[in-house]
């Protein structure tokens, strides 16, 4: 656990991590996670997003859902910065086994090896898994 920090009003700021492990359109998890992140952003906590396993596909460039009659929500990841959600981590092993590189993502990310990702998870106060 980290040392607790205070925000300007004296409230406690906790470290929240959202762990995303599902591809974007086959199930509802990715969209649900994104909506929770946007709503929770109003509470001004220390938020980070981890993309692991098929979760890395959520932020793949070039998504075009016009042929499948579903909303393409991938542009919304680019709005996260304006919600002060700036820590996006991608697991290196997950990225590489899917033939992806950092250039394939539509937002700037920090690529972490599995061990570093595990350490990062240990540092959190609250982990929400999708």
């Amino acid at each position, binding site marked *: 656990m980290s040392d607790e920090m205070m925000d300007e009003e004296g409230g406690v700021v906790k470290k929240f991590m959202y762990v995303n492990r*599902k*591809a*974007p*359109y*086959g*199930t509802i998890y990715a969209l649900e996670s994104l909506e929770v992140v946007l709503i929770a952003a109003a509470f001004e906590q220390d938020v980070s997003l981890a993309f692991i*396993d*098929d979760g890395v*596909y959520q932020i*793949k*460039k*070039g*998504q*075009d*859902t*016009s*042929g*499948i009659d*579903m909303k*393409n929500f*991938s542009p919304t990841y680019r709005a996260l910065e304006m919600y002060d959600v700036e820590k996006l981590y991608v697991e290196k092993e997950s990225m590489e*086994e*899917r*033939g992806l590189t950092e250039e394939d993502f539509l937002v700037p990310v920090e690529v972490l090896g599995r061990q570093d990702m595990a350490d990062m998870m240990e540092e959190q106060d609250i982990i929400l898994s999708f």
Partner: protein
Amino acid sequence: MLLHTINKSPFDKNTFDICISHAKKGSSILLIEDGVYAVMKGTAYEGKVKDTMKDVKVYVLGPDAKARGIDDSSIIDGIESVDYVGFVELTANHDSVQSWL
């Protein structure tokens, strides 16, 4: 012959492996929904997909691939992209369909 369909990512579920171990020579596999992630070049599954293609014709549902950001140039050579009409035709041209869910 059978048309096999796969709608799960090979990285998430073992559906792909189970399917290819049941697909007989001359049958076809159509990858749909999250199954389309198997058709990308450069993934850990590329070798397995190419091995499968020696005996089985592999198709991908184009709109599902596009939705997931997989453009034609990143699809393994020899995999044929079909649209919804093509999907229906494949269904009609095979004796039966096995959907691996």
